[in-house]
């Protein structure tokens, strides 16, 4: 177990270096000159003179590795440079936008867990009943419906037609409901399916037969089946968390949610390179750490692997 953790943690070093390098190189692969973009977005006509000045200001004339190391050491201190669009520090902008995104993703996660565990277990226990079949039809719709379409349909129904909830923004405490439900739809479909199929698979195992022979209560047996079915779902859920946070991009834009997804899309329109770079770096690091937690968690949860590792 210890060896495995140490090895897994050491593996993080090359991955993190690789990611930071990639996020840095990406901007340098851009077909347009960052200095020119930085001038253009402020609606100043670029001339040879002010481009040279901007290059100097952005440090673009330094050797590649020097620029990378400067950028990295600044980034580690939370300084991602200034936005090309409004000249505000990117780090601050992101720090402001991160809590709403995490809040939205957190509420979605809660909805996903509660609904998919509930529905998944119900479907598996009442396998092939009307409930199961109806649920599976709903789930099927959930996997094929585009999230943004579901989003605007829900918005129309609950905000425009029924006026129960606000259309957009983070004005009232209930405002999070519509975006969170929209965000969770696709995931719920996946997890209901996963939990249901895992449980049905487990129900056909020998230990269940043995439990029945022993005369255990159906409820007790189901509890064991449920526990044994959770592992793959937990792994998948861990992997979904960064995807959930990244997936807020579309939802935040529909519901005008003031998070980093919206920040990122605005940055793309403005060709605001430092902002895009910071977004990519932060999301990738988040993704890598979530993977780490999932890997360690799945070893810890499974006694067989705990011994092995």
């Amino acid at each position: 177990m210890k060896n495995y953790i140490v090895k897994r943690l050491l593996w993080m070093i090359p991955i993190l270096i690789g990611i930071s390098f990639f996020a840095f190189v990406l901007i340098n692969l851009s077909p347009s000159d960052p200095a020119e973009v930085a001038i253009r977005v402020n609606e100043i006509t670029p001339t040879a003179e002010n481009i040279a000045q901007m290059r100097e200001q952005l440090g673009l004339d330094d050797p590649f590795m020097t620029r990378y190391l400067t950028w990295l050491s600044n980034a580690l201190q939370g300084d991602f440079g200034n936005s090309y669009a409004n000249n505000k520090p990117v780090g601050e902008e992101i720090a402001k936008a991160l809590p709403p995104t995490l809040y939205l993703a957190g509420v979605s996660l809660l909805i996903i867990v509660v609904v998919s565990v509930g529905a998944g277990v119900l479907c598996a226990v009442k396998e092939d009943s009307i409930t199961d079949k109806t649920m599976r039809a709903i789930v099927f719709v959930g996997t094929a419906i585009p999230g943004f379409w579901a989003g605007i349909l829900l918005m129309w129904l609950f905000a425009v037609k029924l006026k129960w909830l606000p259309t957009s923004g983070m004005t009232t405490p209930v405002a999070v409901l519509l975006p969170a439900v929209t965000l969770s739809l696709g995931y719920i479909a996946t997890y209901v399916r996963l939990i249901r199929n895992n449980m049905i698979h487990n129900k056909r195992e020998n230990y269940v037969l043995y439990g029945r022979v022993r005369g255990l209560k159906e409820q007790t047996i189901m509890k064991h089946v449920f526990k044994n079915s959770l592992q793959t779902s937990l792994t998948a859920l861990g992997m979904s968390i960064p995807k959930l946070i990244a997936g807020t991009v579309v939802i935040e834009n529909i519901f005008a949610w003031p998070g980093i997804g919206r920040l990122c899309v605005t940055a793309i329109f403005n060709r605001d390179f430092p902002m895009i770079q910071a977004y990519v770096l932060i999301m990738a690091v988040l993704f890598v750490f979530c993977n780490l937690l999932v890997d360690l968690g799945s070893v810890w949860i499974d006694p067989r692997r705990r011994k092995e590792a």
Partner: protein
Amino acid sequence: MAGFWKRFRNDNLAMGVSLFLLMVITLAILAPLLAPYDPTAQNIIDKFQGPSLTHWFGTDQLGRDVFSRILFGGRVTILVSVLTMVVTIVIGTVLGVMAGYFRGTVDDVIMRICDIMLSFPSEVLILAIVGILGTGITNIVLATVIAKWAWYVRMIRSIVIQFMDSNYIRFAKVAGCSTGHIVRKHLLVGAIGEIAVLATLDTAAIILNISALSFLGLGVQPPTAEWGMMLNEAKNVMTTNPGQMLAPGMAIFLVVAAFNFLGDSIQEALNPKINRGFKTKRYSLLDSLFGRKKVVTE
């Protein structure tokens, strides 16, 4: 393979879905011939008309014919997605077969590169690349290919490795067949079914992805018709004309559902063993709608 076609043909739903997709793709290709109106021709006097004989799906906020826009939009959405899928699957197959066939150093190098690519969530990678290259449909295709190829390589490599262990490939090797011959005549023929399943299911995901990006305004630029972008325009007039959201959303939903379905059916026709336990029972529609293949009965 013969058994596969027989099972596939006997699956009514699979045939229905295939026909539907064939029809949709034909409509998309023939859009310029079939569309009753120019998809970008504005006629502001006739805006927001309901469905009628002259305008089957009504008209939008600029008085453009929605039916024509759906046809032309399908051209962009479906054809671009299929193209993206073909490019990724070709890259994935070439590198995946190389890694799985030769193993050793080739495998290590390819797989380490894949590991790095896969440590970025693909959504973020796509946004990053579109951010660098700028908005537009070409850039979105490029970004999707760059973000997805590594995943395909990994999947196809694992399929190939599975086949490399089979006796007939070993026999071909012992019999002295050339690498090219084994790959073409044995490996690819064997793996093609599973690759097709991957490709079909992923086309659905790519359609969702590309239309989402267009919805955000990062993909197709107006006035070109595209389903995701049509929904974006519909969103702006949602309070007054909610009906505008129906046609493009339904179009995406049906095509995505059909591709998901087709993927499941191909998989089932390939591996009938998986649900042998159900052979005697005729599926209900809902059964076939979802999850048949996942029900494991040993």
